[in-house]
């Protein structure tokens, strides 16, 4: 079972050489913005995913800084083209110090 918040990733398992394809990635996270007050008037501490990074075989595909204004369950859809088969690595950096990682392989035919 996955540890930490739920991640969902979608990309093709195989792709024709030279084709551009869509990658979708989403993490379930409340993205607490740090500006809300709790029932006692105290501030609810900020807790967000502050960075999302996707790489292919060590090379960065997309690297995003997220701010407190981003809504819960941040979702990214972006396009990529790869020169050969290999592995994508998806990494989310949480304010609580946790780093959540997923990998997905793709074949080029």
């Amino acid at each position: 079972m996955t540890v930490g918040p739920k991640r969902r990733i979608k990309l093709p398992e195989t792709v024709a050489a030279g084709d551009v394809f869509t990658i979708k990635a989403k993490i379930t996270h409340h993205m607490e913005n740090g500006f809300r007050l709790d029932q006692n008037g105290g501030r609810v501490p900020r807790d967000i995913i502050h960075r999302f990074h996707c790489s292919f075989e060590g090379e960065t595909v997309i690297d995003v800084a997220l701010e407190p204004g981003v809504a819960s369950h941040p979702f990214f859809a972006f396009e990529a083209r790869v020169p050969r088969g290999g592995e994508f690595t998806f990494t989310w950096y949480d304010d609580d110090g946790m780093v959540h990682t997923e990998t997905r392989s793709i074949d080029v035919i």
Partner: protein
Amino acid sequence: MKLNRRAFIGAGSAAMSAPYVLAQGAGRPKVVVVGGGAGGATAARYLAQDSEGAIEVTLIEPSRTYFSCFFSNLYLGGFKSLEEIGHTYGTLPASFDMNVVHDWVVDVDHAVKTVTLGSGARLHYDKLILSPGIDFVDGSVDGWDLGAQNRMPHAYKAGSQTELLKAQIAAMPQGGVYAMVSPPNPYRCPPGPYERVSMVAHVLKKTNPTAKIIIADPKPTFSKMALFEEGWATHYPGMIDWVGPDFGGDIVSVDPDTMTLSVDGDVLSVDVCNVIPAMKAGHIAEVAGVTQGNWAPVHAGDMSSKLVPDIHVLGDASQQGDMPKSAFSANSQAKVCAAALLSTLTGAPLLTPGYSNTCWSLITQNNSVKVGATYKATEDKIARVDGFISQVGESDAVRERTYLEAESWYLGITSDMFG
């Protein structure tokens, strides 16, 4: 010949454009109500009760026992028996001056103002109230039709379908998969599918803790979403997987023969597949000519059809504006409609119409959340005035009070409907 005399008077009073109050000497004005649910039964009861015999009320409903769709999720969760959500129509004619006819209405002729029943009998009306609830849009879920409802039940009209779904949940293998195909807006009971998932999870947690629930949803957000997400994470961690349109929850097909569900091309084998198709007004509304698209547009002040005179449409079938399709809404609309008809037919004073709604959802035992609002009639629609919703992080005591409130509402509305 009694029937001929009535038909003659009916035709006569329709031909005279004099107010109905004048026609009273010649015979009581006739109101026919089609559909004995939260809209129809309430309207029939209040017309009969408040007119004190001045209006002849006939309620036509095919079922002899009405299983309420509201609270049927609690039956799935093991909190109610089927008997507790079943109601009969015996008290209405015994307590109020009204007829109850158990039959289908198969035709409405608004030129001569008659309805035809499945038995062939024909009834004249001066005013017709249609409260037929919902039917399903053919072809809205690829691979599913009514012929598949035994393998893949919708359970969105309560009764045998709800029993079937419960039996299928009980028969799931350990670690099996319960899938739900959630409907697009607008549909009956916006939080209903998600309360159902909560109730199924409540049962599976005890009997089948390694089972999974997957929801394919064409909607990016749903009613009380934050409250359900919080409840699921707290009470059923890791069990429920919601797939929205981001990940193809709107690109779904099913195969009842192989018990598979395809979400954006990914094919899953499932053990239970609860398909809740897109919805439209109950078929008789279409037959009566009061629908435009899938629903029946009505005036906000009295729920009268915008398309056909002397017909009112209540509840789920109506397209009235901001109110959600719920039993509470239908009951509220029925009271406004009954008051308007009393005024038209008997000259009773007319009050400014006001509407209200609340939807409660049970997440786990003694833990309910709610959303509600008040509404007013404007020129073009029933418009929302003010609302409220439960908050995330509420205490168990607050949630239990909300649950008890729902229980009292159920007692209240069912005694309103059935006497």
